[in-house]
């Protein structure tokens, strides 16, 4: 239940609940089943508990994934995922009241194998009290050149309905489409490379109905006031990523990743990641990783606009600002069943931890009310992300 709202808005930080939906619908379908073309994934079940704590926001919940071969050439899968959100983020504490809410997501999928090809289809439904999303996804991947190359293509379509908790009559639609193209190539007997491209187009109500932009207002005691955000009603983005993984002479692997992104809102982003995986002692595997992300701001973003209605589109979402994110993390995995036990072939328990540092270059911390408008300190925060999960293969 949400706390009683102040005047301005209830959930400036549907930031977490609202925005991630847009991506969740499009992304989560594809990512669960990294089967090579020509090879269906094994029967397995995963039960994960996740926890995010940072910037005044706490998000926890389970994720359950089950994959089952119902025929030799057909795998069905189901995923149940929950985000339980408790938010007192920077937007909320400066413009609204802390709130709690929950998002629940269900995905059903099927992979069908025919010769060297796998065809996939899935459907996801996501629901929270002010946002609903339905997403359908289709894809095909093919092995070719004596299994040296795998090509994958996909299409995803999403239909969202945006609501507003304090206004039952508010209802806006968003249509989403995504096109993906992927190529995985055997480079040497120790090295694989993967290239992925994805174009996403959104059309409809794309801004957060709760959030406001601020502008200079000499008549205000603080020196600024707020106006509702206004975003363009279309957004098209392109992302290109290249990944490579290398088997070291001793039993360990090293992974490197680079991604570049741009969109019609003027955001240019890049991220770089390295990871190292090493079996340590019998049954234990260690993974260490580092990721760096940077982006510039959207064309219509400003921390402080010069006046009310100063331009057609105005936004003050910190995810559209200029910032960097550094993430350092590790995973420890232990196989507690290695040689079969009853109907279970293998079982592992895993603990994963990542620490994130977000540093904003043009988003200011308005909790400091002593500074003049536009002279507040720049905002930054860190977050702890933990996961514990059990996987069994059967």
């Amino acid at each position, binding site marked *: 239940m949400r706390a009683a709202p102040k005047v301005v808005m209830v959930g400036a930080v549907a930031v977490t609940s609202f925005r991630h939906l847009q991506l969740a619908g499009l992304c989560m379908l594809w990512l669960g089943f*990294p089967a090579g073309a020509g090879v269906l994934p094994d029967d397995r079940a995963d039960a994960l508990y996740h926890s995010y704590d940072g910037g005044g926001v706490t998000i926890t919940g389970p994720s359950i994934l089950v994959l089952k071969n119902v025929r030799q050439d057909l795998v069905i899968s189901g995923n149940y995922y929950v985000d339980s959100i408790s938010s007192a983020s920077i937007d909320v504490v400066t413009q609204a009241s802390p709130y709690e809410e929950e998002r629940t997501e269900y995905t059903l999928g099927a992979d069908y194998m025919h010769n060297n090809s796998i065809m996939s289809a899935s459907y996801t439904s996501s629901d929270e009290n002010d946002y609903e999303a339905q997403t359908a996804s289709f894809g095909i991947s093919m092995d070719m050149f004596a299994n040296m190359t795998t090509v*994958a293509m996909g299409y995803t379509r999403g239909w969202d309905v945006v609501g507003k908790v304090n206004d039952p009559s508010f209802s806006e639609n968003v249509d989403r489409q995504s096109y993906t193209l992927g190529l995985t190539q055997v480079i040497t007997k120790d090295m694989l490379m993967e290239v992925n491209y994805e174009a996403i187009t959104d059309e409809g109500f794309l801004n957060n109905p709760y959030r406001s932009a601020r502008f200079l207002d000499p008549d205000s005691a603080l020196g600024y006031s707020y106006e509702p955000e206004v975003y363009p009603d279309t957004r098209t983005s392109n992302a290109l990523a290249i990944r490579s993984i290398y088997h070291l002479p001793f039993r360990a692997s090293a992974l490197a990743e680079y991604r570049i992104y741009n969109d019609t809102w003027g955001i240019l982003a890049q991220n770089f990641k390295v990871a190292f995986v090493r079996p340590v002692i019998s049954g234990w595997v260690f993974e260490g990783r580092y990721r760096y992300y940077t982006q510039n701001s959207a064309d219509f973003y400003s921390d402080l606009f010069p006046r009310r209605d100063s331009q057609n589109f105005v936004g003050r979402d910190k995810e559209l600002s200029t910032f960097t994110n550094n993430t350092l993390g590790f995973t420890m995995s232990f196989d507690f069943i290695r040689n079969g036990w009853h109907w279970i072939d293998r079982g592992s328990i*895993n603990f994963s931890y990542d620490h994130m540092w977000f540093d904003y270059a043009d988003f200011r911390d308005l909790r400091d009310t002593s500074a003049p408008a536009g002279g507040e300190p720049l905002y930054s925060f860190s977050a702890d992300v933990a996961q514990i999960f059990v996987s069994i293969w059967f």
Partner: protein
Amino acid sequence: MLIRRIVILVGMLLVLTACSSVEPWVKPYERANLADEIMQFQRDPVSATYMIHVYGAREGARGAEGGHGGGCGCN
């Protein structure tokens, strides 16, 4: 745009490559290391999906996170 040009160029190279016969330079019996479970771009699907979700909620960029298939055909 730069990204689209790169994708078109890669696509053209693929088409050209497909016109000629390609001998596999890594034989099936040489793929033991590639088939090692530590050689996966995403080792744990439920965990990888969650982390992409975490980044997607806090960063402006989206897409091309990987996991669309692939592998080395060596299982």
